[in-house]
């Protein structure tokens, strides 16, 4: 009935594709801001849309309508490309995550490795954005982002490989399939791995304990000080989509993902679990003060990496395997 091509197009553009993901990004930013405000004994956005639901959308549209300034001294080409990369990498990565069933839109053996590569690319885009806008504050922010990547990249990769070894596959869809098949989520099988993964994702998202690259009190707005107007809108959307990516990664790797093949039920589970993951991120964000960059890297190398290796050893000994 409907030819194959159009179905694929709809899948990419509409349902589990751009529109759905961007709407989910706005929804998750709303959840994040409202919960953070509640934890800080405040209301948070109230008047734009029902209970402030459309606030992130309003911010995005307003930024689109603002004047877009490129500093004279900035490196023009990279300065305008960085926001585009910042948005496209997380969106691309999200196609690897199963949303409406046990298999994602794109799933091939080894897409977990491809995902890790995308994470590194995001960190490099942040560095390029900071470096190309040449403002003193953004250069410091960019360099700090690069340093922070050195800190969290290794433990994160080690811990992401945990479930892959247990499920003996390198494809996220199969990991989700394995978890639903054996009805055993990796959060119970590899708790240490889960904890480290959450911490590393916090660092990757630059949330409070690790928001060193954009530490407001030290370096104004960090690596994206110079961006304004459309570019800033794209960067903020990119960061929101990154939040969705982090939450959906936790869901698929550790919380069993959409563990049913029926599309409606699967999406329902997926939404529920990702929102739970965002709630977890926000609560952690509200409870900590910001670390110094050297403390963060020292902490990562002294504690996270040994723990990640311990987790790997445990899997080998058969604990995380079932």
């Amino acid at each position, binding site marked *: 009935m409907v030819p194959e091509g159009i179905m694929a197009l709809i899948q990419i553009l509409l349902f589990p594709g751009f529109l759905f993901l961007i709407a989910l990004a706005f929804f998750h930013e709303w959840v994040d801001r409202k919960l*953070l405000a509640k*934890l*800080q*004994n*405040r209301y948070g956005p109230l008047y734009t849309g029902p209970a402030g639901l459309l606030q992130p959308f309003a911010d995005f549209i307003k930024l689109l309508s603002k004047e877009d300034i490129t*500093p*004279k*001294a900035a490196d023009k080409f990279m300065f305008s490309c960085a926001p585009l990369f910042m948005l496209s990498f997380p969106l691309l990565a999200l196609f690897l995550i199963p949303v409406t069933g046990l298999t994602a839109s794109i799933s091939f053996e080894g897409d977990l490795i491809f995902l890790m590569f995308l994470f590194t690319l995001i960190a490099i885009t942040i560095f390029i954005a900071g470096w190309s806008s*040449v*403002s*003193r*504050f953004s*250069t*410091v922010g960019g*360099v700090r982002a690069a340093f922070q990547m050195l800190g969290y990249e290794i433990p994160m990769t080690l811990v992401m490989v945990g479930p892959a070894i247990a499920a003996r596959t390198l494809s996220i869809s199969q990991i989700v399939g394995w978890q639903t098949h054996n009805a055993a989520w990796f959060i119970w099988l590899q708790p240490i791995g889960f904890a480290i993964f959450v911490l590393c994702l916090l660092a990757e998202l630059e949330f*409070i*304990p690790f*928001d*060193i690259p954009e*530490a*407001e*009190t*030290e*370096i*104004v*707005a960090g690596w994206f000080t110079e961006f304004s107007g459309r570019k800033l809108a794209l960067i903020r959307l990119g960061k929101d989509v990154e939040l969705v990516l982090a939450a959906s990664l936790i869901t698929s790797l550790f919380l069993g993902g959409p563990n049913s093949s029926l599309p409606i039920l699967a999406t329902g589970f997926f939404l529920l679990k990702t929102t739970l993951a965002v709630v977890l991120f926000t609560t952690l964000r*509200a*409870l*900590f*003060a*910001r*670390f*110094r*960059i*050297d*403390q963060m890297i020292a902490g990562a190398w002294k504690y996270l990496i040994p723990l990640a290796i311990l987790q790997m050893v445990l899997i080998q000994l058969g604990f995380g395997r079932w």
Partner: protein
Amino acid sequence: MSYPTIRIPFGPQHPFHIEPEYFMFEVDGERVVSVKPRIGYVHRGIEKAIEDRTFIQNLYLIERICGICSHAHTTCYTQAIEEILGVEIPPRARFIRTIIAELERIHNHYLWLGLAAHEIGFETLFMYTWRDREIVMDLLELLSGNRVHYAMNTLGGVRRDITPEIVEKIRKGLDALEERMRYYKKIAMTEPTISKRANGIGILKPKDALALCAVGPTLRASGIKRDVRADDPYIAYSEIPFNVITYDRCDVISRLFVRCDEVFESVNIIRYAMEHLPEGKIRIKVPRRVPEGEAVSRVEAPRGELIHYAKTNGTTKPERYKVRSPTLGNIPSLCKMLVGGYIADIPIVIAGIDPCFSCTDRMAFVNVNNNKQWILSGEELRRYAIKWYRKE
């Protein structure tokens, strides 16, 4: 090989620093090699303006030297002029001035705790402390009608009286304030992230503190027992028992504890003062023309020793009036603390001495403006510096 030292600007416009201040850091790698604060942004030339205003008009101007320690400035001013006039203000006025001074100290310390928490990125504690600060702001508004500039002091006494219902409301407010501050002190002691960012940071040894003439909580956090309220008692402090708080860890966390304990002391002082509030007038007539004379008056402002020097020539306008605010006394010690530390520690160490550049700036100090950037080669940064700060 050592990197070329880079100049790091810090200010003048800063998202959460209330006032424009501007520090030039020479940085080698991540370590601060030398510090040159440069302010002058808030220098309004107040001393010159004081000389061509009458004594009553000066009350309005001196109160606006600083938003947070406005009562301390007016107490110091009225004390100096009353000393030259040889006038003794009624005891009830002295007690009311003390109550307002201690309420202002509580207000300042709560505000400082919130700002310090914000400096190290602890948003939630900033929101909580500033929410509880509203209690003391309401009390001050109840007493004087305004949240910040209270205009309670006038030459010869106080403008408004304290009625028994207000006393009752203050007592309830104080219980809440004391209980909340105990909770925040417990957090400051136990929360690992705070101690990670404030423990052992910005060390000021007692020897340096004395040599560089530090004042207030910064001095008392280095173990030296100096407090103008106890050493050189003024208004009603000689009749109220209280003890001077000192900690001897000489770092930012001990400055935090000194301020927390001072809130408890202030609460007890206010309770004692309200119980022993003497009856009688709250103001006496004071002649407009002040005889010739001079006076030095000192007050323990929330940030440290505040000193005013007044010289009058028998007319209705002062001949010369000098104000030295506590922050200016602490800046040499601040430079000493910053050298050798990390760049990321700069905000919390600066916040440690609770700088009030509005007071300081009617004075000034060490030159060289500053920039804040990290290592990397100096060339690219200089290219941008020309655009960012044309003053360079």
